[in-house]
């Protein structure tokens, strides 16, 4: 009976399944192996994998809009951007509260920068609006104050909206502060964290919500005391809106103190002079009167957005769907194409230049080939920056190469070749820099091809060329494959050399990514571009694997 015909799992001598037995036997070994790589693994996870995952995540992340303008994002959902009108008072009031809170936290400029990627001018619009928004609601504040001066009193506001337990904590805190003052001791105890009165929040939801934001902003800002500062004018706007919206019966559910304050106000608001929010916003900036800005906010209010990826492929997300970018702003597809085409050109140049050298190296006596190999490796020991700068010297119009060509008489002094700050420059310099990555795998593969194959081919009647092409070349293909993958993947993500010698027409997508990372600070777009680049490389790798087989690649 052979082992294969036996039914059931193989058993070890003691009756346990052989597989488990083997696993147990190998466990210590695996554990030891894991411990050996653990430091590097942890290092890579922390310094490499996690940041990259975070960067990739940024390409779809868009929480800044819903974080900064939570009420607006909620309220604008029902607005129809095709109506031709800006959204109504509900949205404007929500936006006002969001904005004043954002201004207090200095978040509105960041939001402006983010939305500016989608529509030009929004950055300055938000800065401008941030300056004006604090005044919205002043009309109502003055009218409430005229009705009852208590409405201007910070302590009364705090008492009204705070949970009774907070009031008690706050009283204790004030007593402690007074005691410290009398004793001349320094007092650094923080104000107790503000807690909202749930009953009141039920009756006056907008106001309570706005006041909570205010209280938190005050506390967050150098640990201020909400009971010592009158609320922002926009809070009065919220109060006006709440009071006009509710029936008198709701106020009757509150305690006597609150009723005494709110009843007259509830009665009075009906005769208050209304502030025209739409007009106020139009006064701040005409743009608020147009639906476009609001449509942009609406489109980008979800927490995740395909917007960066669309931008990266020259498309644009608009309220009406995905459209193509205007022709003068289409650059990324062209840049991707250029990156691919030039990387292929560099790869081809490396094969053409590297193959004969690798062949020579593999067929020379060891002493000579070692010496030549050192010459191949020599550039590795020189800084990349130095080599690229050297190419600048060589390639420029008054540079060494042009001088020699003029001196020999091949080109006219007036017709000096433009070899730098264009694609030619990038291809020349990068081919030189990446050539060793082609030569080394080729060399290591060719080294393993015994000379007897070519001899055998010749003895069988093949000419030198046939012997090379039919017998030697096919066996060196794995080396070409490895070199091409290496060079192509390195080239596609190259940055320094195109930046220095590429000018404007010879730059790669990576230069654009770098620009967005360090200059425009549009990290989302940079992440989207980087993700696409990564996907393209992986797709090409996969294709290569399907066509040639990655196991045929030999890196030596």
């Amino acid at each position, binding site marked *: 009976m052979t082992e294969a015909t036996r039914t059931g799992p193989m058993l070890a001598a003691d009756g346990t399944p052989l597989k488990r037995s083997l696993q147990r036997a190998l466990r210590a070994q695996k554990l030891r192996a894991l411990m050996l790589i653990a430091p590097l693994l942890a290092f890579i996870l922390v310094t490499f994998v996690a940041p990259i995952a975070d960067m990739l995540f940024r390409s779809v992340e868009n929480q800044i809009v819903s974080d900064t303008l939570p009420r607006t994002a909620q309220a604008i959902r029902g607005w129809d951007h095709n109506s031709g009108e800006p959204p109504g008072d509900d949205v404007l009031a929500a936006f006002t509260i969001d904005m004043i809170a954002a201004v207090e936290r200095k978040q509105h400029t960041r939001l402006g920068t983010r939305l500016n990627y989608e529509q030009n001018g929004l950055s300055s619009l938000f800065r401008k609006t941030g300056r004006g928004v604090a005044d919205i609601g002043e009309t109502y504040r003055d009218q409430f104050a005229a009705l009852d001066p208590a409405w201007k009193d910070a302590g009364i506001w705090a008492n009204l909206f705070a949970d009774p337990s907070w009031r008690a904590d706050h009283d204790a805190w004030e007593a402690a502060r007074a005691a410290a003052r009398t004793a001349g001791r320094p007092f650094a105890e923080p104000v107790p964290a503000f807690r909202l009165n749930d009953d009141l929040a039920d009756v006056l939801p907008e106001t309570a919500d706005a006041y909570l934001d205010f209280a938190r902003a005050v506390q967050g800002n150098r640990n201020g005391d909400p009971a010592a500062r009158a609320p922002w004018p926009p809070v009065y706007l919220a109060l006006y809106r709440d009071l006009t919206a509710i029936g008198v019966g709701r106020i009757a559910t509150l305690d006597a103190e609150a009723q005494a304050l709110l009843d007259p106000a509830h009665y009075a608001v009906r005769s208050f002079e209304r502030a025209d929010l739409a007009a106020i916003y139009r006064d701040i900036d005409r743009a608020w009167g147009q639906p476009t800005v609001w449509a942009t906010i609406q489109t980008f209010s979800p927490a995740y957005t395909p917007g960066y990826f669309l931008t990266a492929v020259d498309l644009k997300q608009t309220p009406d769907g995905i459209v193509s970018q205007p022709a003068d702003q289409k650059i990324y597809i062209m840049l991707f194409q250029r990156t691919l085409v030039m990387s292929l050109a560099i790869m081809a140049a490396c094969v053409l230049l590297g193959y004969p050298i690798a062949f020579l190296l593999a067929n020379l006596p060891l002493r000579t080939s070692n010496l030549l190999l050192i010459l191949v490796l020599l550039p590795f020991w020189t800084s990349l920056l130095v080599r690229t700068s050297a190419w600048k010297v060589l390639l420029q119009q008054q540079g060494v190469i042009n001088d020699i060509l003029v001196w020999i008489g091949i080109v006219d002094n007036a017709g000096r070749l433009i070899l730098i700050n264009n694609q030619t420059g990038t291809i020349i310099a990068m081919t030189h820099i990446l050539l060793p990555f082609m030569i080394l795998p080729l060399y290591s593969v060719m080294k393993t091809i015994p000379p007897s*194959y070519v*001899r*055998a081919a010749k*003895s*069988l*009647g093949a000419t030198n060329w046939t012997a090379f092409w039919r017998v030697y070349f096919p066996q060196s293909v794995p080396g070409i494959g490895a070199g091409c993958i290496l060079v192509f993947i390195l080239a596609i993500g190259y940055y320094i050399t195109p930046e220095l010698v590429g000018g404007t027409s010879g730059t790669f997508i990576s230069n654009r990514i770098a620009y967005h990372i360090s200059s425009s600070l549009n990290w989302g777009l940079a992440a989207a571009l980087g993700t696409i680049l990564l996907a393209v490389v992986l797709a090409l790798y996969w294709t290569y694997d399907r066509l040639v087989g990655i196991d045929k690649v030999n890196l030596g």
Partner: protein
Amino acid sequence: MTAATDNGFVVFDRVQKSYDGETLVVKDLNLSIGKGEFLTMLGPSGSGKTTCLMMLAGFETATHGEILLDGKPINNIPPHKRGIGMVFQNYALFPHMTVAENLAFPLEVRKFGKSEREEKVQRALEMVQMGAFGGRRPAQLSGGQQQRIALARALVFEPELVLMDEPLGALDKQLREHMQFEITRLAHNLGITTVYVTHDQTEALTMSDRVAVFNDGRIQQLAAPDVLYEEPVNSFVAQFIGENNTLLGTVTEIKGGVAVVRLDDGELIDAKPVNVTKPGDRTLVSIRPERVEINKERLSPNAHLIHAEVLEFIYMGDIYRTRLRVAGNDDFVIKTRNAPDQRRLKPGEHIEIGWLPEDCRALDAPA
């Protein structure tokens, strides 16, 4: 040797080869190989035998002298035009082609038509009993199968001369013996001229019509295997081919085809002079182990008897191998057949051994 140049199929005429311009790897090689002959170049590594083969194949050029193939000088003909089949040490089967493609390769470059190609390939495969393996890759074959394919590939374009460079070196012993037989059978059946390079003397003896023993860039002896074994012309050949017992001594006189040699321990023996010429010459007396007799009854009357001490007895199945001390030499080995009446010697025993004077050859003493 000049006579050979007239009738040989392959002729080396005073060929010399140097790689560095300072030393000669092949020194004045003259060799004529007849049509249909199986000639083996045998020698230790570095003796120049492979260089000779490579010069014949065209991968090395002779520094001096002429190589002729079928009467025509080929020094300036590139390898692919020589039409010589060759089997390489590591077979050199093209790994990226199937077996059939490997075999079709020489036909393709000779512009044979497709159907003719296929027919020849199939015939060649069947010739080496590999008819069903055409679609396989070389890596899927065993060493012996690869060997057969390499052979078929060298023969498929019907060359008149086939060179083989230690083709059986990578095979195990049993397979090697089998392939030795196959190769000789094929070579004789097809009537092709074969030049075979090896450092394995058994291979050389069993396969060849003639063997050229190389050493130090020269042919030491060129003879049929039996002549080579039984009548080596110098001490190198005697020691290189087969096992050999040697005794050092000095010639005291030569007369009537017999040399009297005084061995270094004083004993006088008779030997057949091969390349000693005059009394006083230092000589190496050579006796094959199987020609030494320990059974006095079986010795002929004119045999020379000598005292020996048994040092070691090794049982090897079909034979016994006994190491003796004879005339001061501790490495004197005799082989006796495992026969019912054969005595097993014990170490420490003192016996008398003997041999016929004609089996004892007085050769030059190496310096």
